[in-house]
């Protein structure tokens, strides 16, 4: 089991500049074939008004982490452990570091409070704008719905606001587009419509799950640019999920690296890129082709394959692919989170946690 001591006191603590704090999150899927620990020990903080990028290979639990925050994990998945502390602003109040702190993991996924937070305080956009929008409803209809779910406004007012936000996200001729069906729009416009829908209620946090992966390079750049602009305008925090380190470099203030459902390293973007501490982070960075090398050179991919989710490796989940694997240690002990400095954390036995280094650990049985 993941060894991480988090005090679950009556009034949860949150750093003064933190908006959301995920602590030792565990989300499991009990399937017929076995238990899939999609997220097993994810911890990170998102600071107010900043962008956190979550990186990792596909299948490492990024999407499930994001969905766990909103409690919209597909059945039979369930959040089984950890805390998701969120600082809830009173609506209409400024974005100061006040407001109540709620543990989202403890809320009833079907309850009214969770529903108010979804879309209202935390909004989410997805990878596939085509399939993520209903094909038989106009985009206007879908945006107006989002507004009216959280604010008590008339149809006309809601429509005006929808057109306004469509305009804001750069949809040309927003009034006419309001009545378009998703299949009548290009991929880029669809994603803009998705963003408009997400921003229509002025959320404090926007979760973007690989929002540009399905788009071509030019459109991708435009959407990223748009998101940065909107962040300046709206002042919201962004949790940006991607497997593209280029995007990370462009967007991130902070970075979290995930591997097999675990956050293996976290820190600010500069230290992650210039001083990576975890062997997995280093391997990821090595796989980026250096400028000037020419596109034809072979990428330095990470050796080996992501292990089967039913059959997680003992000890450090990365040990079967790690270049610095220490036999007898790494395959026995789950690396504990080691704080390097205030915003830096790494989970690798090279940095401590092995018996020789004197730190007490639980052994994975």
């Amino acid at each position, binding site marked *: 089991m993941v060894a991480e001591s988090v005090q679950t006191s009556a009034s949860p603590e949150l750093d003064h500049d933190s908006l959301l704090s995920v602590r030792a999150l565990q989300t499991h899927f009990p399937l017929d074939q076995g238990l899939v620990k999609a997220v097993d020990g994810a911890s990170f903080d998102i600071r107010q008004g900043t962008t956190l990028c979550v990186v990792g290979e596909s299948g490492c639990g990024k999407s499930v982490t994001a969905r766990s925050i*909103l409690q919209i994990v597909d059945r039979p998945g369930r959040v089984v452990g950890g805390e998701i502390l969120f600082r809830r602003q009173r609506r209409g109040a400024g974005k100061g570091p006040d407001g109540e702190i709620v543990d989202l993991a403890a809320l009833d996924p079907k309850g009214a409070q969770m529903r108010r937070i*979804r879309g209202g305080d935390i909004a989410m956009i997805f990878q596939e704008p085509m*399939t993520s929008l*209903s094909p*038989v409803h106009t985009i206007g209809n879908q945006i107006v719905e989002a507004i009216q*779910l*959280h604010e008590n406004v008339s149809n006309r007012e809601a429509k005006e606001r929808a057109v306004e936000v469509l305009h804001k996200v750069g949809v040309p001729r927003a009034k006419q587009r309001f009545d378009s069906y998703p299949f*009548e729009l290009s991929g880029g416009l669809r994603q803009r419509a998705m963003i408009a829908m997400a921003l229509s209620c002025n959320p404090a946090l926007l979760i973007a799950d690989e929002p540009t992966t399905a788009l071509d390079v030019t459109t991708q750049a435009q959407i990223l640019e748009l998101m940065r602009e909107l962040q300046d305008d709206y002042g919201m925090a962004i949790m940006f999920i991607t497997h593209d380190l280029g995007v990370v470099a462009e967007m991130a203030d902070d970075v979290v690296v995930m591997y097999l459902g675990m956050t293996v390293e976290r820190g600010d973007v500069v230290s992650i890129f210039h001083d990576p501490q975890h062997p997995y982070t280093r391997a990821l960075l090595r796989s980026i082709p250096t400028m000037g090398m020419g596109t034809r050179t072979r990428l330095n991919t990470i050796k080996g394959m992501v292990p089967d989710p039913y059959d997680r490796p003992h000890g450090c989940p990365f040990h079967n692919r790690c270049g610095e694997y220490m036999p007898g240690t790494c395959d026995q002990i789950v690396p504990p989170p080691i704080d390097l400095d205030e915003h830096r954390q790494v989970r690798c036995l090279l940095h401590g946690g092995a018996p020789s280094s004197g730190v007490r650990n639980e052994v994975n049985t």
Partner: protein
Amino acid sequence: MLKYIARRLLVMIPTLFAISLASFFIIQLPPGDFLTTYAAGMGAQDNIIAREQLAVLEERYGLDEPFHVQYWRWISNIVCCGDFGQSFEWNQPVSSLIWDRLTLTMLLAVVSTLFTWLVAFLIGTYSAVRQYSLGDYFWTFIGFIGLATPNFLLALVLMYISFRYFGQSVGGLFSPEYQNAPWSLGKAWDLFQHLWIPVVIIATAGAASTIRIMRANLLDELHRPYTTTARAKGMQEWRLIAKYPLRLALNPFISTVGWTIPTLVSGEIIVSVVLDLPTTGPLLLRALSSQDMYLAGSFLMMLGVLTLIGTLLSDILLAWLDPRIQYEKAGRR
């Protein structure tokens, strides 16, 4: 939309032609015809009037002439003057025999369709949303039984039960006092009271397969990303299901109507025979076995035509419900 309908109507014309040709061909298949059988039966009696009548009929329909001439004569009379020919057995124009019965057949088929939808929609939705619940298993099981029970058998069993336990025979569509009465509110109510038994029987088989389709469609849609999007907006679960997956599951559901209509008409025909309803079934069966060719042929053709119209209506409904369909059609043009 109009363009789409016009196109569909145009496509229908060759199909109509094929239906009429096939109907005429099929009733021509049996060796001999009504007149020869009839004449042989009269034999020595040498009824001069009847013989003359036969000759007139033979002349009129050109029963000795080749197939295409006969067909042409038949179809041109239908198209130009609504004359479906003469029923040999009833000695009446076919058109005076078929319309009442076809109307009741259609009424039964339409009411059964609506009933099937209602049942399939409710149960299908329930089964999908509560997948693997006790209720889901129960309805799936009932559905399988419905699928395995032929209509006529269900009719027999129901008749048996009502006779055995309620001491009355079900059957017919009207009580004796209304049998030949002109249409009135009382007659309509009487019809309604009799209608439900055949409707339930016909709908059961249809509903069984439709429930399964509805359930499968809805299960598909429940896992689509747009459902997650709606959930992420903070929508209430039941409202979300009604607005998105249910609405989208409706499309393939409607498109199945096109091919449930022939099944329902089939079901209606055989159930009417068992329950002896004054609809197409019993008369068609009789006309077929006595080789009353114009009567049988007209029934066959009209059943085909009505089915075709039903399919067309369901396609139009679908195009209206799903904006993508017209878009695709327009894109292809």
